[in-house]
């Protein structure tokens, strides 16, 4: 119980700093942010906007107001000649797209990396093991945006197997959804597969030397059962650790991949806001992504201590 309290207070401190930075971003910009956000406006309109945004208030007032708005779903607006459009409307459509991309990439990663990790550990130093490892090492050196473009060109343009842009919601047409997500998901998952596989492999090799594995074998349990039931279970913690460490990589990757495949997710909104200098929208988008990242890490941490009794009991 005390451990949970400490975790939660740590979480709150981190959330404070993360949101503080995002909230004050616009005020920290060199020059007049209003000129950037609404360069088209007349001096009077700019003055009104500056007032409305409260950019001249003390920073703590700005932070407090921003936090209140953020928690009640007011994420500011996009400013254009035709007026102001709320950011939340775009986020509502974009967030599911990004989550789908990341979850699907994560599923693909596990489906491929876990069996590969187990088999290469069991057959360590075999030709298959070496080939897989070399491939993984190579995949780790290929930037995901470069892989995305290579896939888009060869699979999409040359072979015309799959579409290279556009998005269809799974509720509309599941098959078409998967067809359109295939290339982005593969591009995002490739590096993760390599990372997961390598770690799981070295972890499994260590596990396979443990006494309880020898014991299980000597009882005459079939090798595949020993491998998948006895040896894989303790390594699942490693997979979870890697997953936790990789959330940041996954989010960063998704942002770039979305832009390349023109998926209407958070990454595309982010790039758009940078390009058109919509700093109010930008700070909200960054805050959402950062808060989501902190919360996911917190959950992974909790899950970790739930799964591993040694950690659960160690600090209570």
């Amino acid at each position, binding site marked *: 119980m005390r451990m949970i309290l400490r975790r939660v207070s740590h979480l709150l401190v*981190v959330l404070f700093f*993360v949101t503080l930075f995002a909230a004050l971003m616009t005020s920290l910009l060199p020059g007049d942010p209003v000129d950037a956000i609404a360069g088209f406006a007349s001096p009077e309109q700019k003055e009104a906007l500056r007032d409305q945004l409260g950019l001249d208030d003390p920073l703590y007032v700005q932070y407090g107001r921003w936090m209140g708005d953020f928690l009640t779903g007011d994420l500011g607006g996009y400013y254009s000649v035709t007026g102001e459009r709320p950011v939340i409307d775009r986020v509502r459509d974009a967030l599911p797209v990004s989550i789908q991309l990341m979850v699907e990439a994560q599923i693909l990663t596990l489906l491929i990396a876990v069996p590969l990790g187990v088999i290469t550990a069991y057959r360590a130093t075999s030709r298959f093991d070496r080939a897989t490892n070399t491939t993984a090492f190579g995949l780790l050196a290929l930037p995901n945006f470069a892989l995305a473009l290579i896939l888009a060109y060869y699979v999409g343009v040359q072979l015309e197997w799959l579409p290279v842009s556009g998005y269809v919601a799974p509720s509309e047409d599941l098959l078409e959804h998967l067809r359109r997500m295939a290339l982005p998901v593969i591009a995002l998952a490739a590096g993760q597969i390599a990372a997961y596989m390598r770690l799981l492999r070295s972890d499994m090799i260590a596990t396979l030397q443990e006494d309880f594995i020898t014991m299980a074998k000597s009882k005459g349990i079939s090798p595949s059962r020993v491998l998948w039931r006895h040896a894989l279970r303790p390594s699942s913690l490693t997979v979870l650790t890697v997953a936790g460490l990789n959330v940041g990589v996954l989010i960063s990757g998704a942002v*770039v991949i979305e832009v390349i495949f023109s998926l209407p997710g958070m990454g595309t909104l982010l790039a758009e806001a940078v390009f058109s200098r919509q700093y109010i929208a930008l700070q909200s988008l960054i805050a959402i*992504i950062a808060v989501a990242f902190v919360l996911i890490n917190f959950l992974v941490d909790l899950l970790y201590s739930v799964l591993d009794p040694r950690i659960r009991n160690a600090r209570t």
Partner: protein
Amino acid sequence: MPARERSATAMQAPELIQTQTLEPVDLESAVEPTPEMQARARRLGIAGKLAIAWLVLIVAAAVLAPVLPLDDPNENFAQIAGQGPGTDGHILGGDGLGRDMLSRVVWGSRASLLIGVGAIVVGLVVGGLFGLMAGYRRGRTETVFSGLFDVLLSYPQLILALTLVTVLASGEGISSTRRTIVLIFALGVVSIPVLGRITRANTLAWSEREFVLAAKAMGARNRSIMFREVLPNVLPAMFSIALLGVAVVIVAEGALSVLGVGVQLPTPSWGNIIAEGRADLRDSPHIVLVPTVVIFLTVLALNFLGDVVRARFDVRESAL
């Protein structure tokens, strides 16, 4: 004082010692690092030499770009616009605007390597100093610096860099020099917690060694112990992570280019050549492929050498 002592037995990881007492199983030969296997990991081998050769080549290209017989990277030759490799006089062809690809990739190595190395130097100096102090002094110093690392790590790395670059160098009329300096700073900030943590973890371990105690007993000042006794032993670990870090930063600059805040065009970097080539992907895929191959080989070489350094100095992964 044996401050730079690095004897193999002293640095042997406890895990390795433990596995030797286990009953041998059929995988034993795969795991037990025999002396020969360890020696092989420490030697560079042909792959290691190739990796070093490649890095020397691109560093030379970056340094010598102004004196090499290359076309101006910003000169447009209308006749080679979008032409693939092998065009007359332009070995790697031209990009969408008819600029010589070879020249742009060579000049691009300047920006990419400058940012990669620059950011990691920032990370090494700041993160290394903080990590060293946190690990050696412990107590409140450790709480403050570890807290700082935690906060910096609580942003997804690319998003943090994107935010810093946007705040410090976006908008119209930003000079290419300013953008590059800000990129070095932003990606440096991102690498501070990574390098800081590994330094702290290793400092913790080395600070408890006998020679540190001996130095204290002889009346050495804390600062001199930190820099003369502990730091030299922590450097290999920092160096192996730094090699990987340079690779990560080079790739990150590319990702930022895709998002529109990489090195400012028309100054080329490997990343922004790829980002710019997206528009011509259908007809001229070589604009994307050429810098991709260059980044791939560079990252591969750096990752490989990082592993070699780690094996040679027995940097423990658990310290991460």
